[in-house]
Structures are given as C-alpha cells and as structure tokens.
C-alpha cells in the first residue's frame, strides 16, 4: 500500500504543483491518476520514487517513509514506464530489458534468461531481441518499456502516460494486454494519463485531479460515473457519461431471441424476415437483406454481407450488448458464446427496459 499524507509540492517562485494530497493506493490494484495538464498528476507519480521531492507531507510504502530509503534502492524496487518508452537507444532490446537486474548485480546468464522470458511475456517475438529501439514500432517500444519495468519483478509499477504516444488501435491492444498481464501479476500499479477513457478502462481506482494539484474525487470508475462529486468531475468524465457507465453496470438477465440464419455458400430459403443472419461453421459473418439476395437457387456469397455490426458475448457488459444492438443493420445485436458461435440476438429496447427496471429497484 502506498499512502500520500498531506503531500504538497511548491516550486521556487510559488507555483503549486500538488496541494495537500491525501491518497491511499491499494496493493495489487491499478490506481489511475487522471486530470488535465497542470493538475500535478505526473509530479505526484514522480514523488513516489523520489524523482521529485515533496515540499511537505510524507509518502509511505507499506508503512515505510520513502524519504528514509536510499533513492536508487527505492527506484530499483519500482518498475517505471515512461511516455514513448524512454528506452536506451544504444542498447539492444534484450539489454534494455535487463537494465535493473544488471544494476542489482545479477549474473549474466540469469539476466539473459529473465529478459527473454519477459520478451515473450509482453507479446514480442524472440527475433526482436537483438534489435535496437529505433528499429521497432512505437507499440513494440512500449512493450519493451513494460518488460524493462517488470524485469526485477518489483511489487510496484509506476506508469507515466505509457500509451499516449501510440495510435488508437495499438493503444487499445496495449491496454488489453496490460489488463491481462495484471490479472496474472497483481502488481500495485500507479498509472498517469490525461485520457479519461483510458482511466475508466484500466483503473480499479481512479483519482481525478484538477489544476493546481487538488484531488477532486477518488473512487471506482462506476462510482465516478454514477456519482461525480462536482461539476468539474462531471465535465471531465464527458457528455456520454450515462452510456459509458453501462460498461460498469451489472448485466440484467436477457431473453435471447432465435434468429433465421443461413450458412455462407448455401441458397437463401424463400420467404422469411427482411434480414437474415449468415453463419459460417456456426460463427456469425454478417447480415443479408432478403429482398436483395433471394432468387431461386442463388447462393449467399461473401459480397452479399452487410458487415459493420459489432457482436457481444454472453458475459459482455450492458454497454457492449447495447452497442451490438445499435450497430447492427438488422437492429438486433448478435450474441456469441466463448467459442465465437452464435447463440441469439437482443433488441436494444428490451435491454433498456431491463436496465430501467433495475434502476427502479435500487
């Protein structure tokens, strides 16, 4: 557990970066510090490993005042991931990952072994081991940055805007991979971002900071979305707060509807509803419009498919299920099971009615 107790940082000249911050960061969870630029989130993060010295207040890690621990020792016990990775350009991928073990004086063979293990762990191929950072893509560099932070297996991981320098598709992938990694490792992670979506997605706990280094609110994503403490937090969470909160709501018991389906490559039977779902080996491929496709003996081809509808899974959140329904050309959201096979469809209005009902019962 990391505790901020009345921590302030005032720079010479009077600029207040962090103002009397009190915050508890629970062990084994992801805590996200989020806020606009100038809110002191990075300064707060950097105070945890003594890169920035607080003007007043104390920070403790598992009850121990960090001011009493030698800075280099403290830092070697905390992984650190920077924006744009901050890799050493003159060292290969493997040597970058082995940095902290080398500082800790591990044997060469053990460092090599550990670095290769981590390379695989963060989803990079072995043949990248001897590349230099400038030979990697942005996403690959960021993965190496995470591997380097994890090398000595520190209990704490500090991440300073780790995914802000990569494009949205790569960012999405890196975020899911971090969550998967965290499910295995249960590190105490403190992550700084200015992106509220990232904060809500990654954080078990989210601390919203406002300009001047004030803590505006701290809570779980669901709490923040349901009960923002003030206008600043509500504004920061954004306009579609209600819709977004569905990502954290419990899923009501839905009635799944059966659907007329046709297998790809087979002819479409006569009659039937205006939209028919096309399957291939049980997996949904897209919808076809009956009136466009139906001619006696004509087979349904890939070109006939209307794609673009998202699918949701049986264990998806209400947000994903609702999105599947709203994005479907047929107006019915396709639900699949763990194997990716079609199990039924849902209608948006029914899901909304159920959510409404639940809200009434609370």
């Amino acid at each position, binding site marked *: 557990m990391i505790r901020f107790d009345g921590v302030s940082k005032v720079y010479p000249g009077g600029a207040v970066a962090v103002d009397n911050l009190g915050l508890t960061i629970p062990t084994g969870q992801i805590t996200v510090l989020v806020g606009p630029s100038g809110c002191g989130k990075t300064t707060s993060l950097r105070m945890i490993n003594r890169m920035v010295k607080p003007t007043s207040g104390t920070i403790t890690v598992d009850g121990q005042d960090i001011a009493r621990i030698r*800075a280099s020792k403290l830092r070697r016990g905390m992984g650190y991931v920077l924006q744009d990775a901050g890799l050493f350009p*003159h060292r290969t991928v493997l040597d970058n990952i082995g940095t*902290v073990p080398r500082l800790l004086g591990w044997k060469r063979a053990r460092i090599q072994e550990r670095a290769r293990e981590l390379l695989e762990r963060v989803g*990079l191929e072995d043949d990248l081991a001897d590349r*230099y950072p400038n030979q990697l*893509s942005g996403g690959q560099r960021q*993965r190496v940055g995470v591997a380097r932070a994890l090398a000595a297996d520190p209990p704490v991981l500090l991440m300073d805007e780790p995914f802000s320098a990569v494009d949205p598709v790569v960012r999405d992938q890196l975020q899911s991979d971090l969550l998967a990694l965290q499910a295995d490792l249960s590190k105490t992670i403190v992550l700084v971002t200015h992106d509220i979506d990232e904060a809500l997605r990654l954080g078990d706990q989210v601390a919203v900071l406002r300009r001047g280094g004030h803590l505006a609110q701290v809570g779980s994503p669901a709490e923040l979305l349901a009960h923002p403490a003030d206008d600043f937090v509500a504004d920061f969470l954004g306009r579609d707060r209600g819709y977004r909160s569905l990502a954290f709501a419990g899923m009501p018991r839905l009635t799944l509807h059966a659907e007329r389906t046709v297998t790809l490559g087979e002819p479409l039977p006569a009659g039937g509803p205006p939209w028919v779902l096309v399957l291939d080996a049980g997996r949904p491929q897209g919808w076809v419009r009956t009136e466009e496709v139906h001619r006696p003996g004509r087979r349904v081809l890939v070109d006939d498919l209307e794609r673009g509808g998202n699918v949701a899974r049986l264990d998806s959140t209400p947000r994903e299920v609702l999105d599947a329904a709203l994005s479907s050309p047929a107006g019915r959201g396709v639900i699949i099971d763990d194997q990716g096979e079609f199990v039924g469809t849902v209608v948006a209005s029914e899901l909304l009615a159920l959510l409404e009902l639940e809200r009434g019962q609370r």
Partner: protein
Amino acid sequence: MTWFLDHWDEVITLARQHAVLAALPLAVGFLLALPLGWAARRWRTAYPILVTASGLLYTIPSLALFVLLPLVLGTRILDPLNVVVAMTIYTVALLVRTVADALGAVPEGVRSAAVALGYRAPRRFMTVELPLAVPVLVAGLRVAAVSNVSIVSVASLIGVTQLGDLLTDGYNRAIGGELITGILACLVLALLFDVTLQGLGRLLTPWVRVEQARGRPVTKGAAA
C-alpha cells in the same frame, strides 16, 4: 617527388614525432575536458563561464604559448613537454564546449529513464550519457585533431622536431620539393587522424548505423 624519395625515412621519423605531439595532447586534453564539460552542463551558471574561458585560451598565439610555458613550468626551452602542454591547452579549449553540448544532446527522456530505473550518477554518466554523446564528441575530436596537427608544426620555431621542420628548412634553403613534401605530409597525417577517429566513432555507435541503414522502423514481428 625526387626529394621525397631521397628523404623518405627522414620524413617518416618526423611524421611519427609529429603524430605523437598531436595525439598525446588530444588524449590528455579530452580527459581534462570531460569533467569540465560535465560541470558546464551540470550547473547552468558554469556553462557561459567555462565555455568562454576555454574559448579564450584558443586565441593565445601558439608561438607565444610555446615560449611562455618554460617560464611557467620551469622546463628547458627545447623540452618537447612545452609543446605537449601547449597543445593540451588548445585541445581543452576546443573540447569543453563539445563535451558540454554532446552531453546536452542526450535525450531528456533517456536521462530520466536512467534515473527512474535506479542508476546512480557516476554509472549513469559512464554507461548511458557518455555512450550516447559519442557522435557529437567524435565530431568535436575530429576538429581538435586536425587543428592539433596543423598547430604542432609551429613548434619548429622553438626547435622541437616534427614535420614543421620540412617547412622551415625548405623555406630557408628554398628547396621546393621539401616544402611540398612537408605540406603534403601534414595533410596526410591530418587525414589519417580524421579517418581513425571516424572509424572509432562508428565502432562505438553500432545503433546509429542500423538507423541509417534501415531508415524506417521494422514492423515485422508481433503486431503493435
């Protein structure tokens, strides 16, 4: 050409002396410039003072320095040490700024990554900042090396033998072949220094070459 063929062993001996008189101060001067350049980088107020002061040293005429040093050092006037010390001063003068700027060229993100991962200052300097400063350092060393090779020839006027002797002697006795040999030998020597330093720089910076060879990031391998 005939003059050179008749005297080539003499020219080689002079060139060897010339090389030592230029290279030794280059090495010593570089080692002295390292801490000074580091200090200029470390303390903001030190930078203008150190860079200006060292720059001024370079403006002292070499002949004056050669003649003055025996008085300061207590050496004999013909002692080659005078030349070595004088050349070292010139090297420091050129390299303090180079070292400061080379260290300044290390990306801030890389430096703070090193701090965040738990490097202490001396090791960070030796294994992160210095290696990354090599390209700029080499550029500065090449200038200093060529400058040394050229200035050393003046030492003939105070009787320290090296390739400059060919110039003074060739001029005094009006031997055109000797003069031209002297000039060309200095040029070749300067070129040798330059190529050596350039090669050394390449050897120490393998990561710069892959960047130039590939030009764009490799996207092969795992997605993202």
